[in-house]
């Protein structure tokens, strides 16, 4: 596949233009980066972008992590977004957080809340250099737990209560927007207000296990409009991780950089030290190097062939003639890649409908790239054994379709209650 073709690195324009134009040429250090500390997780969310569950035995050691932090300090990376997996299940998690903040690298970490006890919440509230994002994908247990697993809503709410009780103001409630929870935007906002927290809405990507459920979970075209209007009306106090720039084609650009920062101003370090262009692109095509190699992270960031290629203005391809290309930039590279669309064409969720057309006209013979590195729990699978595989012959029941139980749609029988909460009128 012709990934990231383009001319060799162009000299950045010397005349000051829009910042976002300059950022297309990349920075000497990332503005911030995502660091997934572990693939281990107590949950098995159906849309997990890193297919987390089991720890990878090659995980960076405590000392290796500290060396990465030293390097980030030297490169003046202000903060890291730590995630996973569930980062707090690493036994050295708090040690690493303390080490980072002592070295002037701020920490924002994402958690499902499992370890946020009253004690931990009090400790977090006393630090100026740590921010916390609690993941929640439904404003009700029914909607949330269907995606994140039984009991996960209660765990998150308990963590939020502990944070609020400890006086931690402005922690984040981080929501991946789905078809099932977009009717709950107002409820999410109310929840954030109740805990003195800030709402953060981000885009569902077809990455990791998300590739398996994207068709069922990604917002409908009507919901995208609803989301855009809601963000315009409420956007000032709502964070988006700059993830909805493809919605700009509805009208005015949303607040934020409106740029694909992959490999230019952001990147991902995964638990084994692999550096990818962005957290949504865990695939060989977007692998720039490893922090364990000579020169470490800085060498990968500054000199990897992949990042050098990414640091060029986005070529519009099929989108060049679109009036909205300037703000939409063709949308998300990872979303295109994992839905089998060309990277220089429309986003699968292009609000003008070109993405759907492109999806419909995909060639059957073109295999859609699969996310790599499956760390999913295997608790439902029997252990492998050597020798002949014992088979039990069964009679096929003619009233059932000829599929195994595990081939069933993960969202079968799911009918979320329509919350009736709709976006306010656009007030821009």
């Amino acid at each position, binding site marked *: 596949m012709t990934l990231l073709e383009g001319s060799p690195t162009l000299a*950045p324009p010397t005349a*000051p233009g829009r*910042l976002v134009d*300059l950022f297309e040429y990349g*920075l*000497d*250090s990332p*503005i911030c980066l995502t660091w997934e500390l572990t693939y281990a997780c107590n949950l098995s969310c159906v849309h997990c972008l890193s297919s987390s569950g089991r720890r990878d035995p090659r995980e960076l050691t405590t000392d290796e992590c500290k060396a990465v932090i030293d390097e980030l300090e030297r490169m*003046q990376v*202000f*903060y890291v977004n730590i995630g996973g997996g569930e980062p707090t299940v690493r036994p050295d998690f708090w040690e690493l957080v303390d080490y980072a903040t002592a070295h*002037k690298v*701020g920490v*924002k970490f994402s958690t499902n809340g499992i370890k946020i006890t009253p004690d931990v919440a009090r400790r977090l509230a006393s630090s*100026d*250099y740590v*921010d916390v994002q609690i993941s929640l994908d439904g404003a009700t247990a029914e909607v949330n737990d269907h995606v994140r697993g039984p009991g996960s809503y209660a765990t998150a709410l308990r963590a939020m209560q502990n944070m609020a009780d400890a006086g931690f103001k402005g922690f984040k409630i981080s929501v991946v927007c789905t078809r099932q929870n977009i009717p709950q935007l107002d409820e999410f906002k109310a929840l954030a207000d109740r805990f003195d927290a800030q709402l953060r809405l981000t885009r569902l990507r077809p990455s990791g296990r998300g590739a398996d459920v994207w068709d069922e979970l990604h917002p409908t075209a009507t919901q995208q409009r609803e989301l855009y209007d809601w963000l315009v009306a409420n956007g000032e106090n709502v964070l988006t991780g700059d993830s909805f720039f493809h919605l700009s084609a509805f009208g005015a650009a949303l607040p934020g950089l409106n740029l694909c920062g992959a490999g230019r101003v952001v990147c991902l370090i995964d638990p084994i030290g692999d550096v990818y262009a962005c957290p949504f692109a865990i695939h060989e095509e977007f692998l720039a190097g490893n922090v364990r190699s000579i020169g470490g992270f800085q060498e990968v960031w500054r000199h990897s062939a992949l990042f050098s290629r990414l640091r060029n203005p986005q070529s519009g391809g099929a989108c060049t003639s679109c009036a909205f290309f300037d703000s939409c930039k063709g949308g998300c590279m990872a979303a295109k890649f994992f839905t089998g669309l060309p990277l220089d064409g429309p986003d699968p969720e292009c609000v003008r409908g070109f993405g759907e057309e492109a999806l419909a006209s995909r060639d059957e013979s073109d295999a859609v790239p699969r996310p790599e590195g499956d760390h999913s729990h295997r608790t439902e699978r029997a252990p492998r054994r050597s020798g002949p595989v014992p088979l039990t012959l069964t009679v096929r029941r003619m009233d059932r379709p000829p599929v195994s139980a595990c081939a069933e749609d993960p969202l079968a029988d799911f009918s979320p209650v329509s919350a009736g909460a709709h976006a306010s009128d656009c007030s821009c």
Partner: protein
Amino acid sequence: MDLEHAWDLHPQVSVRPEPFGALLYHFGTRKLSFLKDRKLLSVVENLATSPSAHTACTAAGVGEAELPRYETALEALVRSSMLVERMK
């Protein structure tokens, strides 16, 4: 903001110079700002040793004609708490 007063960077703000200007990060508000040219960066760097924002601008080579533009930029930094007035 009063250009004739003395101003400082907020103690929780870090500055990272960049070819286009600089990145500012406030560890208290957890907000990021961008300085869009190097001259503005010099102004910000001069604040701590200047008796007023005006003299910080002059020392960075900001002419009187450009002053309103730099005042607007500094005002934005005051609004986002990146700059604080120095107490006498």
